[in-house]
């Protein structure tokens, strides 16, 4: 009799446990994918499209139920993480998140290691290592710890140094203060020069890109692309001589002048061409009709001036509008 009762009690307890667990379990066809570092859950199950088609509160209820189920699964996973009490025994329960697993693109490219400066190369060669210096130095005169450089430094204010000793082998007439100032200026200038040289070296070492690179977004003007293709064509071992052309690409005539714009005919070349050119020149000089068509030239000039005036007027109006809004000009509104 007692044994049966015990069994009943155990079964009841089991039932209660299952009941409790039922409230936090969710049934899904496909398991969700979790990225706990990002608090992310990906559900691959195709949602019930039929229910979601009709607009209105039913759709909202369905979406909410789906969200609730997914959130329950995500929270269950989060609660399984190793947790500790932050800030002593009474602090809040804090779970340690793993590293985010979902690969997201970076904001900027990773930093390139810069080449060592001249001093760094020398130091590495000689095995010189950096000595850590204290930031405060004991100042005997002021009898306190002062900083090594900067405001109220240990050696006294250099601007107020009233004594400058003449060194042993120097000219007695020379202005020592001027010399000190000049030397400081020279040191600063040399430091700056070396810094810029190091920068230039680093920059040269870092950028080994062609003159007109391809734009990262793929949006580039036609001329730039043409230039890039031209450079690419010539960048072969045989300088582009045996490079096949694309089906519709026009054959570029070889510019014997190598890119120079003005070309002069050879002195003793085509006698017939020279003769015909000279005769044409004489004919034009002798004829009464002017070579320049005045009316056409004037019309062209007028058209150009009109276009410029229209553009300037448009710009002026927008500018004036902007100015008018910002400043209240006293006399203008009456116009």
């Amino acid at each position, binding site marked *: 009799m007692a044994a049966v009762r015990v069994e009943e009690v155990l079964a009841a307890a089991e039932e209660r446990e299952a009941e*409790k667990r039922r409230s936090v379990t969710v049934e899904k066809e496909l398991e969700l994918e979790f990225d706990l570092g990002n608090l992310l*859950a*990906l559900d691959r199950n195709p949602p019930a499209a039929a229910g*979601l*088609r009709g607009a209105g509160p039913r759709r909202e209820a369905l979406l909410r139920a789906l969200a609730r189920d997914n*959130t329950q699964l995500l929270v269950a996973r989060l609660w399984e993480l190793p947790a500790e009490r932050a800030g002593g025994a009474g602090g809040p329960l804090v*779970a340690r998140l793993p590293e985010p697993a979902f690969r997201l*693109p970076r904001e900027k490219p990773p930093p390139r290691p810069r080449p060592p400066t001249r001093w760094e190369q020398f130091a590495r060669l000689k095995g010189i290592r950096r000595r850590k210096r204290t930031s405060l130095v004991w100042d005997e005169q002021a009898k306190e710890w002062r900083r090594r450089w900067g405001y109220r430094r240990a050696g006294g204010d250099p601007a107020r140094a009233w004594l400058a000793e003449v060194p042993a082998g120097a000219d007695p007439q020379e202005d020592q203060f001027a010399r000190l100032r000049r030397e400081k200026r020279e040191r600063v200038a040399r430091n700056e020069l070396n810094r810029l040289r190091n920068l230039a070296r680093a920059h040269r070492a870092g950028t080994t890109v062609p003159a007109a690179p391809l734009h990262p977004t793929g*949006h580039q003007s036609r001329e730039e692309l043409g230039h890039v293709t031209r450079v690419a064509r010539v960048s072969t071992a045989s300088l582009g001589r045996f490079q096949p052309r694309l089906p519709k690409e026009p054959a570029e005539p070889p510019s014997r002048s190598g890119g120079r714009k003005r070309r002069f005919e050879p002195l003793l070349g085509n006698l017939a061409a020279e003769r015909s050119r000279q005769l044409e020149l004489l004919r034009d000089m002798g004829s009464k009709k002017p070579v320049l068509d005045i009316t056409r030239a004037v019309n062209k000039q007028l058209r150009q001036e009109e276009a410029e005036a229209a553009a300037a007027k448009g710009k002026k109006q927008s500018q004036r509008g902007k100015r008018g809004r910002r400043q209240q000009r006293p006399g203008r509104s009456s116009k």
Partner: protein
Amino acid sequence: LIYCYRKPKTKRAKRFLEKREPKLKENTKNAMLIKGGNANLRVTEVLKDIYAVKKPFAVLYKKKNITRPFEDQTSLEFFSKKSDCSLFLFGSHNKKRPNNLIIGRMFDYHVLDMIELGIEKFVSLKDVKNSKCPEGTKPMLIFAGDMFDVNEEYRRLKSLLIDFFRGPSVPSIRLAGLEYVLHFTAVDGKIYMRSYKVLLKKSGCKIPRIELEEMGPSLDLVMRRTHLASDDLYKLSLKQPKALKPKKKKNISHDVFGTTYGRIHMQKQDLGKLQTRKMKGLKKRPAEKSAEDGGVSPKKSKSA
């Protein structure tokens, strides 16, 4: 900072430049929310709500900017450079594309991906009369629907949305503070974005029961144009420097059950000279050591 031709003259300027230079472990991405030339009320409200969700990692531009991102990206790139934002949300409205939102991200201050979404329905933060969760809460993100895996554009959209909404990367999180969840469902060519406030109810076991309360902006979106980065550019942007890879600890291994095994490398040992437990009775007397006789213990004989 390292490539600065003009060295910063103040510490503040130096800190400013150091924040913006490329680093191994990057800052949280900032978002810029821009209005187009003809943004209407709905689009403006969407931008304001998303700004509220993304505070303080967002910048909301108040003035209208007359640009067309799909035609000319220089204006966006200029803004990104000036405000150091790598995510953007551009809202505009015209007859052909009503209630338009362009969500995008940058790589090295150049546009990487841009996806144009149309807003079909919008419920704002202030329309839902509920208590809201505090500003800057890290949201939980859930994506439902197989479209987010099957379709390439949807996959990029998923990656973009995660990038946009995930907030700062934290090593640990307070379990009671998981209050905000953003749920994206892709169904029938539409994307439903809903935000809920999470209520943790007592359940019998350790894991609490979740109840959701509708809160915050909810959007019904439809995908329009896209401008996705080419595969190699995308791969280049995903590249992480080697230094960030977690260093493998050598000679430590784990098995399926969670037991940690370690490996110790020892030199060759002379087993004769091992230190075991001392048994005084077996100790060799100096006289015996010379004779190498392990018979009767001399102690016994002595006492006798």
